[in-house]
């Protein structure tokens, strides 16, 4: 059936004009050529029909167009910028390594470079296991043969040789958190946490959220949202919530509200900030979420917390805050947010008259 139609269409325009009609539809003819074709079209029914079909084809193809929506574009951008961050870090490491081993040593002679790599490989194979066997005794870390690393020192400890250095920044950077297990403890005690890390060899970090290693890993999870599953990030927020007055934790939660691409995580991070000391960063995070977040649930949580702070008199009324709230009253698509914004202004007191 298609072949028949194809053959019919092939002969529907006068031979010499077939390609010119395509170019006319594509607006690729110069003025004189265009006039020539137009003149021909006036006197030739076949070509007029063929040109009409050309226009219909383009219209038909236009019906199958997609436009990337704003969320999709934003998520592609976020992914790209994260990849760029990682590339820059890798580039920095390469330059650092290059300063010890200049490429000029190796590049002129591939045979020498191959020999050097063989020697390095041989040495690592020979001495590596020996060095690894000695690592646990040299570091003051309680680590069992299965790679279970138990954090025993409190996060705020200043005791030299505590577990603060048990996981190196490089380990932390390259580690994937494969899972978080939480074991509730009674009597308002913080729950026990087990973090399974995939590093070069599997490692387990266990303790409470008050332990430095546990805290560092959880904060890292929030700082690198592209890398970890939303479930892991949600668990991390939930666990860190009890320490929301710790400046590092507070900062990580605010970071999650600003940058996490999952609305559930942003919402949970906002909730986790509830009750935190309302210092500048927290206040700014609430305002940013209220103004910029695309998710209405997150914006509602932000205005609720602002209302709560205003009702308790824990937030100062200033021009920036009032400007944001007035803007919300005028522009926010959610009726609830518009009403709550007005209520916050009222709660802030009689400083502003409107």
């Amino acid at each position, binding site marked *: *059936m*298609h*072949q028949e*139609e*194809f053959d*019919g*269409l*092939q002969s529907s325009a006068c031979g010499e004009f077939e*390609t010119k009609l*395509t*170019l006319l539809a*594509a607006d*690729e003819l110069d003025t004189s050529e265009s006039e020539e074709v137009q003149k021909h079209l006036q006197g030739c029914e076949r070509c007029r029909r063929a040109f009409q*079909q*050309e226009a*219909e*084809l*383009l219209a*038909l*193809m*236009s*019906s*199958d*167009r*997609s*436009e*990337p*929506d704003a*969320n*999709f*574009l934003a*998520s*592609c*951008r976020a*992914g*790209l*910028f994260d*990849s*760029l961050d990682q*590339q*820059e870090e890798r580039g920095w490491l390469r330059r650092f390594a290059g300063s010890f081993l200049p490429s000029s040593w190796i590049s002129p002679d591939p045979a020498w470079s191959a020999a050097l790599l063989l020697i390095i490989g041989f040495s690592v194979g020979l001495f590596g296991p020996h060095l690894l066997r000695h690592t646990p005794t040299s570091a003051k870390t309680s680590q069992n043969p299965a790679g279970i690393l138990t954090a025993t020192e409190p996060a705020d400890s200043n005791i030299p040789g505590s577990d603060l250095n048990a996981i190196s920044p490089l380990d932390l950077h390259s580690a994937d958190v494969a899972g978080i297990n939480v074991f509730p403890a009674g009597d308002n005690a913080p729950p026990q946490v087990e973090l399974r890390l995939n590093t070069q060899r599997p490692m387990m970090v266990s303790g409470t959220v008050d332990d430095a290693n546990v805290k560092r890993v959880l904060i890292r999870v929030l700082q690198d949202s592209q890398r970890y599953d939303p479930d892991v990030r949600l668990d991390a927020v939930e666990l860190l919530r009890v320490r929301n007055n710790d400046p590092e934790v507070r900062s990580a939660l605010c970071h999650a509200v600003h940058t996490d691409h999952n609305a559930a995580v942003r919402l949970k991070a906002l909730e986790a900030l509830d009750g935190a000391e309302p210092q500048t960063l927290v206040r700014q995070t609430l305002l940013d979420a209220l103004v910029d977040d695309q998710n209405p649930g997150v914006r509602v949580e932000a205005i609720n917390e602002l209302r709560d702070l205003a009702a308790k008199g824990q937030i100062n009324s200033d021009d920036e805050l009032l400007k944001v709230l007035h803007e919300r009253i005028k522009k926010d698509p959610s009726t609830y947010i518009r009403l709550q914004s007005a209520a916050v202004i009222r709660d802030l007191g009689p400083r502003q008259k409107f």
Partner: protein
Amino acid sequence: MGMSVALDGDARLAAAAKVQEEHGLVRSAQAGDRLSFEELVRRYDREVLRLALNLVHRAEDARDIYQEAFLRVYKNLHRFRFECSFYTWLYRIVTNVALDHLRRRTSRKEDQAPVPEDSEGTTRDFFDRQPEVRAASNPERNLLGQELGEHISTALNRLSPRERMVFEMKHYQGLKLRAIGDMLGTSEETVKNSLFRATRKLRASLAGMR
């Protein structure tokens, strides 16, 4: 007349200022200023994503093309010598990445009839993504729409990657054939032939639909 000349002059001056400003951004990005690079990305990435999305009809594939293209731009930015516009240079990279992707997909049988996905990764028919007014709760029209979408998808799969690219860039990105030739690293004549072949194939495939 005098007014029109003055307006033309103003437009030219504005265009020249815009080019200068963009070159300034490119130079800063070449010197390692990440923010300048991000600004360049923001200027063009919607068009790049639209091109990718309409070529591959699958959100995840479009995201891959977008990411790979801009990472290549970032890595090779030092090679840009201001001999053409940044836009042309960027599109050379984007079209190369997209053509590679289409060629790989053509060689994988399971990808012959792509099912579009939305930005959340959920599989949905193309017509599910159209504004509600198109379906208008009319099942007959909806069914016709689905059939049409399938026909167009089949017709597009009959084009070679290059023909598909030329058709897309000409009719939907609004580029001139000469510019497309510059971007694809080929002559205007070759691009013209690709456009003829693409149009004929589509005409043959979709003749019964009009």
